[in-house]
């Protein structure tokens, strides 16, 4: 399916979805209505007690703008659903248009305090690591969306993870997510790690070249990443040295190639590849 076709299929549907809500719905009985109103009064938007990330008051300007920009495309696509290609293109342009001013507004606005705080925490993590492992251990600090991000040099990966697990200031003991990503020049492995005592939630990364991709394993420190590392090995072809049981996990033994790599060709090699 091509992009255009698909978005056309979506367009009328999505329109319905967007317009429907404007009609008041009768689903609740009058009694229910009263209750709902009363509770609305009681709850004056308790949207965001600091820790949550759902809605952000600093971004109040964005939604109306986006709405304005999208609005013109709506009647067009609703009026002539038959001429499918045009409205879709319109919608695309409108969406792009909607984003640009929003982005500009963001750039002009003062930096998000949550991101600033994340960067600060990342710096502190770096200080801890550098004090123990030397200046070269940390390659980069910053923020991964709203979370502190520290990129660690590959050779120091297990030492750094172990240090942060045992360090009294961090106690990063619970890996929530481990993922690998294939970029054009390198493969990046990232873990999102939590301190269940102190509440830190930090993104740690490391990189390896795509050729002979190799990263020291951290299974001995966090046994829970055993299968995650196997999966990354299977699908992205990163060898985790010192892994106790590095085998394919999703694909079958004898399968060639690593499907999540961007240059993987979709033909599976048929019988040569051991497929049945």
């Amino acid at each position, binding site marked *: 399916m091509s992009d255009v076709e698909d978005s056309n299929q979506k367009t009328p549907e999505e329109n319905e979805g967007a317009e*429907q*809500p404007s009609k008041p719905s009768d689903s609740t009985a009058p009694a229910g209505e009263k209750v709902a109103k009363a509770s609305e009064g009681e709850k004056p938007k308790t949207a965001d007690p600091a820790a949550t990330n759902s809605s952000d008051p600093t971004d109040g300007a964005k939604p109306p703008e986006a709405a304005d920009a999208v609005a013109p495309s709506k009647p067009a696509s609703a009026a002539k659903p038959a001429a499918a290609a045009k409205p879709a293109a319109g919608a695309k342009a409108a969406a792009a248009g909607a984003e640009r001013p929003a982005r500009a507004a963001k750039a002009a606005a003062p930096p998000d305090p949550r991101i600033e705080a994340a960067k600060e925490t990342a710096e502190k993590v770096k200080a801890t690591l550098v004090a123990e492992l030397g200046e070269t251990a940390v390659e980069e600090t910053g923020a991964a969306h709203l979370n502190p991000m520290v990129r660690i040099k590959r050779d120091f990966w297990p030492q750094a993870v172990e240090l942060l697990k045992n360090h009294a200031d961090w106690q990063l003991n619970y890996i929530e997510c481990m993922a690998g990503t294939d970029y054009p020049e390198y493969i990046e492995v990232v873990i999102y790690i939590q301190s269940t005592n102190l509440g830190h939630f930090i993104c740690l990364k490391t990189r390896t070249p795509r050729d002979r991709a190799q990263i020291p394993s951290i299974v001995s420190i966090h046994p829970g990443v055993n299968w995650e590392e196997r999966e990354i090995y299977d699908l992205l072809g990163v060898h985790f040295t010192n892994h106790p049981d590095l085998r394919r996990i999703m694909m079958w033994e004898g399968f060639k190639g690593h499907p999540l790599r961007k240059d993987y060709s979709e033909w599976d090699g048929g019988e040569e590849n051991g497929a049945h």
Partner: protein
Amino acid sequence: MALTDEAQSIRTEEMILNVGPQHPSTHGVFRLVVKISGETIIEAEPVIGYLHRGTEKLAEDLQYTQIIPYTDRLDYVSAMINNYALCHTVERALDLEIPERAEYLRIITMELQRVASHLLAVGSYLLDLGAMSPFLYVFQERERIVQMFNELCGARLTYNYMRVGGVKWDAPPGWIDQVRDFIPFMRKKLKMYDDLITGNEIFLSRVRGIGVFNTETALAYGLSGINLRSTGFDWDLRKKKPYSIYNRFDFEVPLGKNGDCFDRYILHMQEMEQSLRIVEQAVEQFPSSGPVLGKVPKMVRVPAGEYYSGIEGTRGELGFYIVSEGKDKPYRMKIRKPSFVNLQLLPELLKGQSMANLIAILGAVDIVLGEVDA
């Protein structure tokens, strides 16, 4: 080798036994290669991947809205929550505001889904242990939930209901009343199950003190959800990192004490009660009108960067990690699959156990293979 004296005196031979892939107690296509000596398990090795569909790779060629139906097929008994997990990550990336009515519809559907999923978990667990009737009974209650979802979005299993910025369909007239009526009905049934199962001597002797692990092990293995809470560790993302509008509801997080199979069973029962509490409050607060889909551009483009957020799924932390280049499709999408992570502990739990306990332990870990294999 963990053999009793008595067992050692009888000559046994090590034997390899295949459990699965087509075995009813594996809850799908899951294979377990166990090395046994007599009745005792020496080693167990899970073999997965029979249901691997490459969802993560497929997602790289799909727009965000198009990925939603694929999430239905991960943990196929709690599709609503999977839908939400993806939408939530994208919404956080876009910093979207969700209409009130949509938030409430999401909470109601997600918590009902949790009840449906836990019902099935309990029913199939009892079936694994040899009790046939609970499995058939739970389908009656589950059916009511499924019917309500069917009315809401026209599907019984794969709902494709959530959208980035809200939900696809508004509740039809009378739907909320149906939900309201369902709550006392379900409470009564829960009481019935509690009476029938929880005190059952045979059941208790199968699950008490079986498959025990402690909090330290659970954290080291990255367990989440009921598996982690059964050890008495208070970790529910609805409380710890509140998302959606969970901070508006009054509910408790049930915790276990011993970390055995019985605790994991009883937590399922208690969580259903808590979910009903949330649904009850949500129904009371439900806004009488309003949009169900926020102002979202037709083509959802996530700003360049990487995003991760996890929610409390039925089986643990369900998270989506998205790397975006600012296009309408993700550059990379990784799913943090609770069943996949939880299953890793299984070989450790099975060592030294008898074959009969294998089913009891595997059932209590509560996996769905669609999610394990993704």
